[in-house]
C-alpha cells in the first residue's frame, strides 16, 4: 500500500509532503495506517472537499491511497475535513514532522561528534 500526502498553506506557507510505502514501514505502523484509512471511509470520500468560507491561512491537503486493488485521491481544505478523516490527517502530519525532527537530530549528532 502506498499513501501520498501533502499539506500546504497555513500562515507559514511551508509545504510538508511525502510518500509512505507499507513495504518500508514497521508492521504496527502499517496496521495503524490501515485502521485510519478504513475509519475515514477513504474510498467513499469525494475527490474534492472544499468550502468557500474557509477564511485565510488554513491548511490545504491532498491524500492519495493505492492499495494495489483500490486507488483514490482527495483534495480538501482543513475546515472542510470530515470528522472521521481528521485522525488520518493528524497521523500523516505527525509522521512527516517526526521525519524532519529525526533528520534534524541526526544532523545535530553529526555536527557534535
Amino acid at each position, binding site marked *: 500500500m502506498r499513501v501520498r500526502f*501533502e499539506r*500546504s*498553506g*497555513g*500562515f*507559514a*506557507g*511551508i*509545504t510538508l509532503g511525502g510518500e509512505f510505502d507499507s513495504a518500508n514501514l514497521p508492521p504496527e505502523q502499517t496496521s495503524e495506517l490501515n485502521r485510519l484509512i478504513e475509519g475515514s471511509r477513504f474510498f467513499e470520500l469525494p475527490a474534492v472537499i472544499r468550502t468557500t*468560507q*474557509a*477564511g*485565510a*491561512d*488554513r*491548511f*490545504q491537503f491532498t491524500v492519495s491511497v493505492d492499495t494495489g486493488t483500490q486507488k483514490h485521491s482527495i483534495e480538501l481544505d482543513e*475546515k472542510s475535513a470530515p470528522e472521521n478523516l481528521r485522525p488520518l490527517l493528524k497521523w500523516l502530519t*505527525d509522521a512527516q*514532522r517526526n521525519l*524532519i*525532527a529525526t*533528520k*534534524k537530530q541526526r*544532523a*545535530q549528532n553529526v555536527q557534535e561528534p
Partner: protein
Amino acid sequence: MSHRSPICCIVPEDILCRLAALPEHRDRALRTLILTERLRGRRAVLDHVASATTGTGQKRRTVYDAQHGTTLPGKLVRSEGAAASADVAVNEAYDFCGATYDFYMKAYSRNSIDDKGMRLDSSVHYDQDYDNAFWDGQQMVYGDGDGTIFDRFTKCLDVVGHELTHGVTAATANLDYQGQSGALNESVSDVFGSMVKQMSNNQTADQADWLIGEGLFLPSVNGVALRSMKAPGTAYDDPQLGKDPQPANMSGYVNTTSDQGGVHTNSGIPNHAFYLIAVELGGFSWERAGRIWYEALTKRLTSSSDFQAAADATFGAAGNLYGAGSTEQKAVQNGWDGVGIKVNQSAAGTAKKKVGA
C-alpha cells in the same frame, strides 16, 4: 447605509458621522449632527448616529482558550479591561490585538475590522501541536506550535496584525483567496502586519527589518523569520525544512496548485513592491505608502483584483491622495517597476471605484 438628505449642509452628514467617531472631534460633530437632525424634524437622532459612535475609539477584545481542542471559540478567559492572565499566550493575543486596533485607529481612523467597532475575538491553544494561526471568517485562532519547528503563534505582533488584517480585507476588497487575488490578500496582511510592528517600535521604513514572523522558528531551524519583504526568498534556508520559496519579481512567479495557487509564495512580489515604495518615500511607512495601500484596499480593489490591478489601483490612489505626477505617485510606479509590473496609467486613471465603500 447612511441616509442621504437633500438638505444642504456645509459639512456633509457622512463626514460628521466619521468625525463623531474620532475622540477629538466627537462632541462638536455630535452637537452639529443633533442640531441639523432637529432642523429636519428627526427625533431618533441618536439612533441615526449610533453606528458612528458605537465603541468609539474603544477596543473590545475577548480572548478564549480552545484548551487544545478544535471547537471554537472555547472558554472565555479574558475580556476587555480585565486583568492580565497568568497565561502568556492569552496576554499576547490581548495586547497585540490592542496594538493592531490602535494602529488602524491612529493611522487611518479605522474603528476595528468593520470600521464600526467590531469586537475582536481570539482563541489561543487551538488543537494539539498546532503549527499555525488563521482567520476563520469571524475570529483569530492561534496554535501553540509543534515544539520542533515552530514556537507559539501569538509570539509575534506582526502575526497578530496579519490575522486581524484578514478581517479588514474581508470587510473591504474581499480578495478571493486563490491565485493572484489570494496572493494579494496575503500580501495585504503582511504589509499591514509589518506596519503594526513598525508603529509599535516607532521605526521608519529604513529602520524596520521588514521580516514577518521573526522569532517564530525554534532555534534548531536555520532561518530568521518566515518571510522577508525586503528580500523575499531569504528568510530561511534549512536543510530539513527547505528554502524560503518567495519570489521578489514577476519573473519568479510560481505556478502551483498547492496552497490555493501559491498565495503564501507569490505574495512576495507585492510585498517587495510595497517595501520599495515605503523605502523610496522614507519616514514612517504607514503615513504615505500605507495610506496609499489602505485607500486602494478600501476603495479600489475588488474580489478578483490581480497584481496588475493592484499596481493600477495604488497608482490611482496615490494620484488621488497626493496629486498626479507627485513624488508619491512616482514612487508607486517605481516600486511596481522594481518587481516587474508596469503600471497601466490609463487603467489607473479610470480605475473603477467601489460604490458605497
